[in-house]
């Protein structure tokens, strides 16, 4: 194949853009938060009596008087970007403003701000403006360039790989860097057990390297997301509170970028549900009414003749059963609900977090609780009471 054709094929490919829409909204909000943080930092740097540490000669910091306007522009652009309003302007200008802030003084640098600036630029080239936004949803704009999504994914792994490799030095491996940055209350605790710091240091390096690779593995991806979120939340809770806002910004940013590793294209599925239960039928009806295209085929458990799959291994009185049309894979409980959500518009997609490892323990427990009481709930809501008594054992 000619190089030109291959380039055209690779860089003409498009993927579902719903995760890009969410990333734009969440990272826009992240930029608002970081804008307020930058205000405080710049106020201290520019305060009378404080010296400046020039980084590049041409980057002139705003004056203290102009700072509120500088931050107002930042936050205004971030809000516009989050809402998808004039994204082709707000994205590049916001990215440039944050990048410029990194350069006005050595004291304004932050890895998180650098990453935010890059990601906003990448989201702009990812055509995030074409997704549902304040400018109005474009029904044809269901896809975004695959290469731009790939760049966001690579950026995540690059941050983790270099974050890990740069920590391979005596100061970090000794636990000293961690100790110096821990919250005082934790310092007191681990200070008595220095080996804990050694283990934490080595584990964080290994974990970052693992995350960089595991996010690309279909087998490990969901576990990597749960572990990655727990890792970042752990960092926020254990490091100095003076860094908390920046660490929260970083946690939100990385968690949002995790979304890019997943397939968000709706799939044709068949769902079997207890149609003798009023609330069950109402919930399934809610999904059917909101799906953008007929991705979901719903079959009631009492319509045995209509069954298209072997359901004998599952108790349809205990849980809905979902079968993927293409792969033939089965899912029950909250995992089935998460798969159903894929057929819904973009605003409902965060509900899919319920199927992630760790989260699924909670969501399955809630699901089980509701499933057991579905008849009572149906009755209280004035919906049809179940005609069939709830089954306790497995279907024979």
């Amino acid at each position, binding site marked *: 194949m000619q190089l030109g054709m291959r380039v055209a094929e690779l860089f003409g490919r498009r993927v579902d853009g719903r995760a890009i829409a969410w990333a734009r909204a969440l990272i826009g909000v992240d930029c608002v938060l970081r804008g307020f943080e930058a205000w405080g930092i710049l106020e201290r740097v520019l305060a009378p009596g404080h*010296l400046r540490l020039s980084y590049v000669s041409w980057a002139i910091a705003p004056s203290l008087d102009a700072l509120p306007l500088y931050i107002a522009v930042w936050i205004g652009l971030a809000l516009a970007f989050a809402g998808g309003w004039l994204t082709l302007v707000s994205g590049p200008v916001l990215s440039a403003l944050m990048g410029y802030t990194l350069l006005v003084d050595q*004291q304004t*640098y932050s890895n998180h701000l650098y990453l935010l600036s890059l990601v906003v630029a990448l989201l702009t080239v990812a055509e995030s403006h074409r997704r549902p936004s304040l400018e109005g949803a474009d029904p044809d704009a269901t896809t975004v*360039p*695959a*290469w731009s999504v790939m760049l966001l994914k690579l950026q995540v792994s690059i941050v983790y790989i270099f974050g890990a490799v*740069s920590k391979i030095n005596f100061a970090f491996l000794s636990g000293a860097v961690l100790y110096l940055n821990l919250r005082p209350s934790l310092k007191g605790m681990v200070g008595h057990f220095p080996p804990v710091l050694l283990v934490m240091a080595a584990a964080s390096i290994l974990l970052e390297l693992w995350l960089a690779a595991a996010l690309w593995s279909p087998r490990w991806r969901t576990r990597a997301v749960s572990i990655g979120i727990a890792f970042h939340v752990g960092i926020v809770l254990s490091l100095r509170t003076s860094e908390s806002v920046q660490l929260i910004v970083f946690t939100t940013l990385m968690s949002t970028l995790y979304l890019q590793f*997943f397939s968000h294209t709706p799939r044709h599925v068949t769902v079997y549900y207890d149609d003798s239960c009023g609330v069950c039928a109402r919930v399934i009806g809610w999904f059917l009414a909101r799906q953008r295209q007929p991705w979901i085929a719903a079959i009631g458990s009492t319509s045995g003749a209509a069954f298209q799959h072997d359901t004998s291994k599952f108790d349809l009185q205990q849980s809905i059963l979902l079968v993927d049309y293409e792969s033939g894979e089965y899912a029950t409980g909250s995992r089935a609900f998460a798969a159903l959500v894929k057929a819904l518009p973009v605003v409902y997609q965060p509900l899919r977090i319920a199927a992630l490892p760790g989260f699924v323990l909670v969501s399955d427990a809630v699901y089980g609780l509701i499933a057991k009481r579905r008849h009572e709930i149906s009755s209280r809501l004035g919906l049809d009471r179940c005609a069939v008594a709830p089954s306790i054992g497995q279907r024979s």
Partner: protein
Amino acid sequence: MDTRDDAAPRRRPHPRAWWAAGLFAAFVSAQLAIPTLMLAGPRPSRFGWQMYAGFRALDVYTAVRHDGSTAPIDLRAFFGNLRADAYIAPAMFVPHVCGRHSDARAVRVRHVMSGDTEEYTCSSE
């Protein structure tokens, strides 16, 4: 949540594919080259994704009075948001220390990372 890679329907090849390929290659190259170069420097260094990657102590400044006694200089009194990876040029900073410590005849700088010590005389002007 599905874990499979996207398999969205393909459209006609984008006419700007070459621009996209160039941007892609430039971005990835920069994101590999810059952090790799930064690994050769002290940790943490900027633009290298070196978060909490090492211990980098700032130089220690001491004012030396006319009677030979010394007084430590608190850098936080001079800078609003000092970071460990900041470089403070003594030639720029010493005049400010001398200005605030009128009884100082010199400023001693101990470079913590190298262990070297330098002394800068305060100008009488």
